[in-house]
């Protein structure tokens, strides 16, 4: 009997508080499961062996760490609810003569019990679901699957070790809480209201400024690179601001509501406003956490889903034809019309060998340089263009020079240009001047801005703003520039102007044949002979179909990670809501009992609970929606880095995610408010 004394006390403690412990255990099990699955996938042979599998496993590795760290933070949070709830019980043990070290022993048994149960069930579910996740992932990646169930010893050991550390830390934390409290304080339950924090208005204003700043950044940033740089700054600002605003803002709000006597002294607001004010700080922190988790879920899910859904688009952006290529040439002579015609002839040769027919062909000559516009002048000083600071990135522009002849041929347009006149095509920029001055100080008049270059923007480089300058004659107008500032000029003084011949065409061949043809083309130019014959500096030829697997692995992997982490964060948000409701329910129980004695009807109780919950629940949802609205543009820009240029798709996905999330949230709201109502009405509802 004595032998099982402590384990039994521990078990009883859990059983008696099952309303608190069951969700906690479920959380632990869920976290173990998710971690095991990630650990399993990141070492899965099947994924390793597929194309792009390594990059996916790198994501998964990152994801597994995110889950572990998040599990640690989150279990600390939920555990604090449990400890608080049980302090009274420990106080009683203490008064009845149990020493703190005995309590520590009970708690040790309890921790061991929870560890064993959550690990056991977590691993069980993890193993059971790992195959499902593997299949899901492989399906997203369009990869071949087999249906053998396997388990990974490595992943099991990693989960055991990872969560052993977490549970040990939790145990130590509980001991610390017990150690620093006296029997009386353990027993004492009298609640005092929270005082408004000092400098509350200041915090609210500061939060408002931070949020405004973050929103300003998010809305004004136009350049994708700058967006990436500033995105995380903005995220941190938003997180801090949300906490500041929700905490101090709710205090200010409660104060204002209370001052408004006509609003405050209404049966449905009276009770809810006062109890919100009573625990405003805690409330605010909880709301902010929910709001941030919700925002994270929305951002992750909508961006990765957009990438995944838009990957065909992205693929076509990068590879506007089935086969594309770019030959960067040594000098102006090598990019002469005659030479380019020879390159083209080689392509035809390769095609006829493979029995392919060139369709939708385009080929054009291009000179490219990175500049910093100063007025209308294209400054190519590397000091300026190599400036990857925020200001620098904002102003750097890629300039492509294309001859009018090629332009008309590629677009089917019939433009005419006079001497010293150019056409401009702007990609992600606004060129304000009426003239352009080339790096060699020759000035041209801007005749017109055109709205097409190719039927798809082969310009490709979505990251940096691009200006395409269409000059009257490629050889005459660009030749001197390339000669002076080309590959052999002094590059410590100038950015080099590189010249290339670009092509693209469709074939109507099968996927395998396309890839084969691309190989043939590659072989035609490959090697020192091929390159020197034409004066090729370097070249790349790609088949769209050949790149598809890599695309799917990257975007599918990101989408998968987005889903998994969203599920984890969503679970966390739900549990925060649940614990908030339960712990407040227990606090409010006595209050509602008094109110019933004083003459509050059940209906009025329900009404006031609804009014309270509605505010508490939909404030974070509203906050997340507003955050998302402001983050929309900056994320849209960042997606450009992933070659996704489809704002409409992204907007649609965002909206869909928000609606799905909102519905899910409403369901959670209904369920937890029922639990809350049951608690405050003493289970008699």
């Amino acid at each position, binding site marked *: 009997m004595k032998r099982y004394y402590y384990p039994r006390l521990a078990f009883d403690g859990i059983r008696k508080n099952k309303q608190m412990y069951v969700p906690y255990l479920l959380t632990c099990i869920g976290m173990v499961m998710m971690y095991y699955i990630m650990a399993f996938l990141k070492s899965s042979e099947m994924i390793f062996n597929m194309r792009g599998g390594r990059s996916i496993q790198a994501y998964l590795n990152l994801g597994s760490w995110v889950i572990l760290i998040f599990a640690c933070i989150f279990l600390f949070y939920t555990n604090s609810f449990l400890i608080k709830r049980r302090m009274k019980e420990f106080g009683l043990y203490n008064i009845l003569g149990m020493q703190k070290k005995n309590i520590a022993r009970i708690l040790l048994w309890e921790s061991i019990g929870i560890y064993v149960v959550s690990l056991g069930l977590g691993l069980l579910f993890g193993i059971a679901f790992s195959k499902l996740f593997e299949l899901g992932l492989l399906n997203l990646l369009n990869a071949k699957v087999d249906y053998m169930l396997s388990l990974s010893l490595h992943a099991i050991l990693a989960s055991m070790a990872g969560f052993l550390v977490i549970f040990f830390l939790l145990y130590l934390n509980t001991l610390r809480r017990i150690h620093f409290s006296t029997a009386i304080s353990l027993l004492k339950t009298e609640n005092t209201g929270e005082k408004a924090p000092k400098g509350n208005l200041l915090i609210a204003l500061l939060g408002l400024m931070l949020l405004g700043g973050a929103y300003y950044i998010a809305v004004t940033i136009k350049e994708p690179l700058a967006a990436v740089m500033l995105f995380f700054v903005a995220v941190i600002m938003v997180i801090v601001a949300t906490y500041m605003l929700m905490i101090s803002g709710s205090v200010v709000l409660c104060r204002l509501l209370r001052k408004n006597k006509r609003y405050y002294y209404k049966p449905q607001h009276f009770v809810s406003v006062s109890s919100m004010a009573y625990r405003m700080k805690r409330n605010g922190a909880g709301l902010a956490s929910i709001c941030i988790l919700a925002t994270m879920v929305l951002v992750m899910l909508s961006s990765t889903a957009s990438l995944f859904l838009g990957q065909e688009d992205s693929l076509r952006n990068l590879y506007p034809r089935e086969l594309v290529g770019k030959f960067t040439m040594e000098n102006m002579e090598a990019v002469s019309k005659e030479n380019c015609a020879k390159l083209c002839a080689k392509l035809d040769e390769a095609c006829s060998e493979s029995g392919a027919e060139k369709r939708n062909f385009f080929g054009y000559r291009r000179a490219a340089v990175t500049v910093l516009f100063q007025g209308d002048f294209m400054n190519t000083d590397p000091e300026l263009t190599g400036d990857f600071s925020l200001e620098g990135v904002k102003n750097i522009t890629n300039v492509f020079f294309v001859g009018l002849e090629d332009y008309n041929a590629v677009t089917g347009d019939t433009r005419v240009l006079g001497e010293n006149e150019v056409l401009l095509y702007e990609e992600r920029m606004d060129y304000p001047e009426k003239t352009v001055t080339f790096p060699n100080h020759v000035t041209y008049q801007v005749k017109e801005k055109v709205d097409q270059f190719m039927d798809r923007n082969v310009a490709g480089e979505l990251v940096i703003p691009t200006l395409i300058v269409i000059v009257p004659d490629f050889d005459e107008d660009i030749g001197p520039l390339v000669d002076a500032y080309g590959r052999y000029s002094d590059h410590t003084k100038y950015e080099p102007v590189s010249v290339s011949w670009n092509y693209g065409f469709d074939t109507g061949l099968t996927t395998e044949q396309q890839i084969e043809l691309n190989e043939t083309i590659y072989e035609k130019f490959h090697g020192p002979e091929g390159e020197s014959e034409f004066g090729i500096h370097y070249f790349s030829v790609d088949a769209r179909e050949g790149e598809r697997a890599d695309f799917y692995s990257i975007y599918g992997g990101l989408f998968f990670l987005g889903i998994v982490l969203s599920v984890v964060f969503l679970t966390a948000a739900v549990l925060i809501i649940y614990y908030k409701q339960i712990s407040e329910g227990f606090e409010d129980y006595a209050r509602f009992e008094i*109110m019933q004695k004083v003459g509050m009807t059940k209906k*009025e109780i329900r009404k006031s609970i609804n009014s309270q919950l509605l505010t508490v629940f939909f404030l974070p949802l509203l906050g997340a929606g507003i955050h998302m609205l402001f983050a929309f543009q900056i994320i849209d820009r960042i997606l450009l880095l992933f070659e996704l240029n489809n704002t409409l798709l992204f907007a649609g996905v965002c909206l869909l995610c928000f609606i799905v999330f909102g519905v899910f949230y409403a369901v959670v709201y209904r369920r937890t408010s029922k639990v809350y109502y049951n608690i405050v009405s003493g289970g008699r509802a």
Partner: protein
Amino acid sequence: MSYLEVKNLKKVYSSHKGGTAVEALKNVNFSVEQGEYVAIMGESGSGKSTLLNILAALDKPTAGSVRLDGRNFAEIREAEVAVYRRDNLGFVFQEFNLLDTFTLEDNIYLPLVLAGKRYPEMNGLLEPIAKKLGIADILKKYPYEVSGGQKQRAAVARAIITSPKIILADEPTGALDSRSTDELLRLFSEINEAGQTILMVTHSVKAASSANRVLFIKDGEVFHQLYRGQDSNEQLYSKISETLTLLATGGERA
């Protein structure tokens, strides 16, 4: 017909599993006239609390009836009970039962707010009461910021602000020190002199001796009653003590 009439009241608690039934009230009969100040005394387990719960419409009798101002409690529909209680009864509890989320002022307003009154009206009602009870200065404070006596005075204010037909007080001095007890009893007497009907359940002789009439309950029945008549508080006090001694030593019904 009397203002409050309790007739043949009987309450039996039986456990769900069909175990032993406990008879908390056997057969209680008494009446209270308007403007009276009545104390009900009895030891723990005598059925006092059960009686009070029934009078407060918080519990239903097994048999018998309670009529207040001509209205039979049994006729009030379940959904209206809370509203009836709010509009017609005032409560003062041993543990004050103030809500710590409200200031004293808001605690006092609670029943009025529930009744849908507007702020100016409520404020007008509160001012004279707060002055009389000596809590005008601490209205903006929270319950955890004031003493027990002050809390109880706020609770009294909450009870009388609705001008209830009757005030039901359950051991109102139980959690108070002697000075606060004296003050509270003096307040009760004052309120009663102003015409308020009060029914107080207590086992404090001192508290009971401030009433005009004292009922003694034993084993679920009204065992005895004392009228103040021309007695002073002290004289009533000694009469109550004697009765209690008699009750405790098992004396026969007087």
